């Protein structure tokens, strides 16, 4: 199945909004760390509903914000959620970004990078479009150390890249990005039921759920273009 087929379906069934709500718990902390200067141009890779770009416009004084997504339906939804003339959406693929060299100040990507058919190519493309000193904020919940995420691959037909923390740093460096930070951002907002309510449909034990959200949370890797 293609990215388009898979995620057009997610978009038309409203999963873009569901992801926005859940991902916001950790994404907002990562977004708050971005050194956005007034007027900076931001690119959101795999933007889904586009909440990250909207937040950077509203709270960080970003200039233009572009969301790229491989699913036309995702981009269409995202367009409907805003009438900010400084926000724009583009349908495109992580494998060959349709942007000029050095044209972007900051690239953001949440829960999307690992769908790239070739993550190394995508990192090189990101390094190419970033201006010198620009940052790449890469946030993922699906990664090696987060054992609770491993089964996700079973539910999706696109092959996912499951790197560990070190592979992320290595991959960034191989593409010429300097690694500035790596962090696990806990999700402190998701409701974790009391012991007596387990097992739940998705969680056998409360400990596992606590580990998944409060400990592993979202893995953030920050790279800087040289």
């Amino acid at each position, binding site marked *: 199945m293609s*990215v388009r087929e898979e995620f057009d379906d997610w978009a038309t069934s409203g999963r873009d909004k569901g992801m926005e709500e859940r991902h916001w718990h950790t994404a907002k902390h990562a977004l708050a760390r971005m050194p956005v200067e007034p007027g900076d141009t931001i690119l959101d890779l795999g933007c889904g509903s586009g909440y990250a770009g909207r937040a950077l416009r509203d709270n960080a004084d970003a200039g233009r914000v572009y969301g790229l997504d491989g699913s*036309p339906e995702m981009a269409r939804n995202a367009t409907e959620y805003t009438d900010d*003339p400084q926000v724009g959406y583009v349908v495109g693929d992580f494998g060959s*970004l349709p*942007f000029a060299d050095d044209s972007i100040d900051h690239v953001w990507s949440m829960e999307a990078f690992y769908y790239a058919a070739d993550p190394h190519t995508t990192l090189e493309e990101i390094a190419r479009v970033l201006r010198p000193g620009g940052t790449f904020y890469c946030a993922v919940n699906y990664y090696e150390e987060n054992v609770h995420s491993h089964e996700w691959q079973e539910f999706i037909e696109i092959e996912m890249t499951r790197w560990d923390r070190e592979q992320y740093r290595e991959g960034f460096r191989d593409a010429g990005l300097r690694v500035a930070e790596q962090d696990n951002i806990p999700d402190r907002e998701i409701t974790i039921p009391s012991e007596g309510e387990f097992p739940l449909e998705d969680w056998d034990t409360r400990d596992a759920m606590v580990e998944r959200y409060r400990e592993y949370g979202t893995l953030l890797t920050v790279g800087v273009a040289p």
Partner: protein
Amino acid sequence: MKESLLEILRCPLDKHELELEDAEYADDEDGDGDGNEVVDGTLVCAECGERYPIEDGIPNLLPPDMREETPA
């Protein structure tokens, strides 16, 4: 899409500039000084000639082999 997006948008195949053809603009210009809103048209690579559609105001810059017709 805003016409200003053309400044940084490039052909995904060879990263050359794109030219806007057959542009249709939105009726109500918002007067924000950021150029016009293009709702329909085609982006053409100045180098390789590859053509990319603008659908409902959203440019589709997927590489041609990944671009499919909108399912019925």
